[in-house]
């Protein structure tokens, strides 16, 4: 049933494109149906998986016989968690784009292609298939930003597309090399992981594939596409970008680079741990200096993704669990933050400058927005009770034995994170003059709409539930890390 998440998304995408000519107004309903359907299918499908968090094959049929490539979809607990994240983010994205009128049919069409491709990546067990879905995701991102974006949209879109494509080219070189070294007989992830190539070769290929994927995860210093891309993107797209697309990269690092080349991590762990630590601090410090509200959030994403990479580089079970949990957590929180900035604030005030926003005194006029942002900000700062706390704590404890120095740097990053978040809250919501409330630029602000409220509730609930009861996800993630796929990695981490 999980496989239907992606068929439903692609089907809805076709329907949405088709509606562009006749009835663009129904496109958002199609998109809502597609994304909610994906979420429901994801949850029900996961609960009916025979092996639970272990490896479940969903479909396996020959695809390109002379290369031995198969149409092979499978899910383990990690896939399930990320499929849920995709469903949540996609649904929220549609809700926060409910007011979109410009070329709506095409917008939701591209959006759903993106969603479908993301499901495809998370569910592919054949490396060629995984790569195909990974590539499919690039083009919709470009058009979503270039057509519906704002600030320097064409630059941001092109930069994002080229970075993604360059990363995926590096990945492909590594993948075909692994395939050729494996005797060109299989693209099956389990098969290839079970017959690792010579260690000296692994060192090079690991770096290539890991960096190729990590470009999309915002690995410093290859992160620069992220802030410009996020800022230029329309709300739903930046929610997907920061919320889910960056996780594609991290997922690729974990699922492909680390399992195919388990011996490759050892010589590079220090380097990637360092880059992750630098990324955490760098993103936070740069966010502290921004005057554009959306750039604050954009850089905060780089910082938070650093935790994912730090957890991955540690390669301990605790660190990996934390990394996957952080993927989910940041996906939800970043979605919420971008929704506030892009939809709730910018669509009403038509500015994202922190100082100009203070004039609107949003906290008094539209308290819903302020409350939402404060909740999201608390979650983002890693307060106990929210998912970010559990995830980042796990990453830091998991990484402590490996790189205590970089954990300390990450700790500094956390402090800087509190600083930039509080700064943004204070500037935007709590520094306006009460008497000018809402009237300053001379127009009444549109009240918060029902879809916005629904989207907010959905995402806040997700981060709270996981924060209060992390076992909900851990029960899926831990069995997945115990599967044979990660056996070699576990062995090396243990020894």
């Amino acid at each position, binding site marked *: 049933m999980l496989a239907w998440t992606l068929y439903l998304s692609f089907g809805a995408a076709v329907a949405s494109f088709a509606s562009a000519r006749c009835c663009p107004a129904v496109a958002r309903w199609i998109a809502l149906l597609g994304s909610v359907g994906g979420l429901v299918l994801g949850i029900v499908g996961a609960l009916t998986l025979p092996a639970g968090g272990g490896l479940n094959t969903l479909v396996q049929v020959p695809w390109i016989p002379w290369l031995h490539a198969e149409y092979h979809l499978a899910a383990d607990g990690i896939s399930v968690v990320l499929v849920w994240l995709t469903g949540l983010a996609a649904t929220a994205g549609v809700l926060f784009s409910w007011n979109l009128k410009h070329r709506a049919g095409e917008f939701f069409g591209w959006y759903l292609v993106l969603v479908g491709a993301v499901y495809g990546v998370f569910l592919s067990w054949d490396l060629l298939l995984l790569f195909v879905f990974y*590539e499919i995701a690039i*083009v919709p991102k470009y058009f979503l930003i270039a057509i519906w974006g704002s600030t320097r949209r064409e630059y941001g879109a092109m930069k994002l597309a080229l970075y993604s494509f360059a990363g995926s080219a590096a990945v492909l070189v590594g993948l075909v090399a692994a*395939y050729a070294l494996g005797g060109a007989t299989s693209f099956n992830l389990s098969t290839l992981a079970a017959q690792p190539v010579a260690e000296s070769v692994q060192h090079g290929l690991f770096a290539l594939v890991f960096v190729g994927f990590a470009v999309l995860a915002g690995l410093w210093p290859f992160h620069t596409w992220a802030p410009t891309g996020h800022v230029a993107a329309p709300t739903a797209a930046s929610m997907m970008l920061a919320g889910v697309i960056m996780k594609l990269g991290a997922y690729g690092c974990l699922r492909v680079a680390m399992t195919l080349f388990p011996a490759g991590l050892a010589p590079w762990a220090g380097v990637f741990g360092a880059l992750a630590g630098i990324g955490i601090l760098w993103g936070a410090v740069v966010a502290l200096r921004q005057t554009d509200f959306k750039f604050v959030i954009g850089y905060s994403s780089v910082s938070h993704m650093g935790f994912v990479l730090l957890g991955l580089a540690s390669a301990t079970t605790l660190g990996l669990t934390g990394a996957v949990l952080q993927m989910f957590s940041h996906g939800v929180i970043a979605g919420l933050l971008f929704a506030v900035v892009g939809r709730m604030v910018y669509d009403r005030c038509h500015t994202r400058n922190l100082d100009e926003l203070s004039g609107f005194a949003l906290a008094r006029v539209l308290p819903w927005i302020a409350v939402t942002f404060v909740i999201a900000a608390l979650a983002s700062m890693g307060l106990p009770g929210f998912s970010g706390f559990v995830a980042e704590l796990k990453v830091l404890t998991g990484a402590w034995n490996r790189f205590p120095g970089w954990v300390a740097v990450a700790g500094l990053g956390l402090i800087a994170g509190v600083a930039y978040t509080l700064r943004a809250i204070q500037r935007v919501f709590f520094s306006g003059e009460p008497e000018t409330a809402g009237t300053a630029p001379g127009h009444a602000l549109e009240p918060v709409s029902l879809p916005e409220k629904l989207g907010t509730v959905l995402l806040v609930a997700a981060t709270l539930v996981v924060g209060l009861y992390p076992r909900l996800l851990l029960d899926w993630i831990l069995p997945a890390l115990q599967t044979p796929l990660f056996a070699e990695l576990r062995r090396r981490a243990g020894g």
Partner: protein
Amino acid sequence: MTPVDYLELALTFSTELVLLVTLGLVLFLDLRGWLGSTLAVRSQRGATLTAVGLVLAGGVLLTFPPVADAPAGSFVLTQTTLWVKLALLGLSLASVLLLAGSEITEHVGEFCALFLLATEGLLLMVGAENLLMLFVALELSSLSLYALTALNRRHPDASEAALKYFLIGSTAAAGTLFGLSLLYGLTGTLQFSLLTARIGSHIGDPLLWAGLALTLAGFAFKVAAVPFHTWAPDVYQVAPGPAAALVAAGSKLAGFLVLLRLLHAGLAPIPGTASGLPFQSGWMPAVALLAVASMAVGNLAALAQTRVRRLLAWSAIAQAGYALVGILGPTTDATLAVQYFAFTYGLAVVGLFGVLEALAAAGESDEISSLAGLWRRSPLLAVCFTTFVLSLAGIPPLAGFLGKFFLFVAALKRGQPLDHLWLVAVALGFSVVSLYYYLKLLKPVLVADPAPEVRPLPVPRLLALTLVVLAAAVLVLGIFPTLLLGSGTL
């Protein structure tokens, strides 16, 4: 000498004969019967008749496949050549349909006749088993294509481009002929199979390497590989759409497959190495060099283009580089990969020329900026254009992705697993570069709003149908490549 059995000869060449009969018919009808009609009607009829001829030829080929000739013969028909001939007829069919209703040339009959002659040359070229036959067929197709290039009344520069094409082409052909004669002088045979058997004993003879290099030149010209590419931008820009499509699609498909056969069958004993040290001369280093040069020059030059057709020409040069990478693979893999790549690439390119013809017929220039707002002016053209360009860029699930992927995997399969990884890495690196200019083409089509005064763009029904079929084929073959190549394993 054995007496010639004319009936058997006619049966062997029944496909080619159908094309010749069509050629005569369309020439005669256009000169005699259709004179009173308008140009649009004449081109409609000419294109339809030519299309019918091509379809019939395909039917004949499928119904009466000639018996495979003995190794001593001049022509062969194997499973591969049968496939390639059908693919060629398909690409020619799609290309000639672009002529329907067009007013691009007054010489409709001659155009169709030359078009058929060029196709005929390509068909013969694919089946040739004898170096001399190969050369004659190569020249037949080339000469027809030179003439077709000039038949464009919209462009006063057409004859200049045709002359350029002709001069470069005949120089390359002279080189090839000289190269072939050297090979003949060394081995005393013109047959591929005998060549294979005898060439091994001449390794180390400088004449062999001179012969190889000169022979390669002619084919590098045919597929527009650097440094024999300089004709391409001009020809792409001014040739009439259907002719440009044939040059870019059919002629390339035939060129790649014949080159592959020449290298893998005729010159199989002297591959050499393309994987660094220890260096060993042979055709592989030469092809690798051509590939790298084509990818580099084509992709970098394409970045600077402002005209759609010139951009396509440079991108075609780059794509020829990718195909040459695939040619390095082991024979079966390389053949499969090049077949799939060249055919699906051809589909996309013919489609692109179709879209450009529709724009040109509406009086648009071929500046990239004139594509602005196509999504509003004609959603159909915009969707098709996007599909074709994304396929060229190698974006899945369109066929261009698997095309390139097959080529790279094929190259990796020869020798040690990582011998040719450097070439694949170079090719993938340049693919990233290419994404920039392909997106630059798509930006005006999908992103920009049209200028306020422009009108919707009408698309003739037949052209619309052709484009939709081509776009669907690019998508479907990209998802189900087994439809094209069968589901056998290697």
